[in-house]
């Protein structure tokens, strides 16, 4: 009985604190994402990649982190990584038209490159 009460209490603590943890993770990840945007706008794409990779690690359910990461990978010519990041972003937020449009533009270039490779 005592053990059961302990278990219930632990579950309660976890269920109450989980959203708080998630919020903390999102806040922390968002700081990285914002800094990444600032540096990307200055053309410092490698630093931006580092920031967005951190954001994606801290909060693996943050679509913006993956969208931005995909763009940066694309800019660096790392197409396979870009594709995976776009797909993850769309998996997290399938109805986001901005991510979808970014992905469509990426695919057009990627397809062209693949066509060349297969010639």
């Amino acid at each position, binding site marked *: 009985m005592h053990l059961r009460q302990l278990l219930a209490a632990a579950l309660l603590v976890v269920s109450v604190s989980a959203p708080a943890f998630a919020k903390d993770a999102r806040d922390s990840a968002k700081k990285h994402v914002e800094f990444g945007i600032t540096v990307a706008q200055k053309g410092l794409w490698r630093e931006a990649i580092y920031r967005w990779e951190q954001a994606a690690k801290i909060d693996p359910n943050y679509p913006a982190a993956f969208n931005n990461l995909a763009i940066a990978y694309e800019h660096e010519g790392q197409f396979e990584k870009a594709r995976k990041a776009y797909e993850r972003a769309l998996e997290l937020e399938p109805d986001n038209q*901005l991510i979808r449009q970014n992905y469509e533009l990426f695919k057009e270039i990627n397809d062209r490159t693949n066509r*060349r490779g297969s010639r």
Partner: protein
Amino acid sequence: MTARTAAAVASFALALTVSACNDVYEVPIETPIQPKMDVSPFQRVLIAGFLAGGSEDVDANLETVRLLRSQLRSKSQLKVIDADVLPLLELANEQRTDKGETSANGASPATPPPAGGPTPALNTTTQAPPKAKDVQQARIKDEKDLEPLEGIFANVDFWKKIGEEYQNPLIVTGSVLFTAHARSGFVQREQEVIDQLGRRRVVPVRTYMERKGFILQPKFIFIDGRTGTTIYSEGYKEEVLYSPQQTTPALSSYFELMDRLVPSFLSTLSTQKIKGSRVLMK
């Protein structure tokens, strides 16, 4: 809808969406497209010459060599070798003849002209008798005429020897067919009309027309000067047609058509960047 149009529409829609949101940032990006082939083992490139045929108004061999050399000089990191243009048609014909002789009397195959020696270059005085050359060139009218001569591209010894003479560069060769052509059919054009109320309108009009123009069919072959083997090849076909009233010189048409192909040719050898924009999100 072509992929390019779709991309333009998507880009426009993207711009509209971005302008309506605060947490998104449109950024310009340059996506690097890697060259179609690895040119890292080469520092130099030799645009050797082409099997050319078709219209007699344009020396497609000489013009193609000149154009590609000038493009590569300004848009590639490879050093362009300034050598005499190989009369490839003559050499290919010689090699064919020699092949026949080899089986008969064991004669050696045609060898490339020496680099510093008296090359029968097309931009200088050619050594071949004019009549013989005319006969050879007259034969090349279409792809079928070219086919039997294309064996020269597989002659590893020939290309290896050229490679040795120029210190193992990347060799660019191939064939260029530039032919006049005519096509008749319905053409849609826009015509301005004035209606009963005096308003100007543009209406599409379909007219039967016989148009004349040119077809350019180059095939670029990239050969490793160290081994004489083909590394990569790529063929193109471009066409231009003009209305009967237009009189466009053949050479202008040739350059018009080559202009369409040159970016793709350059992207074989060097990294190209595609400019675009994407939307970053917070």
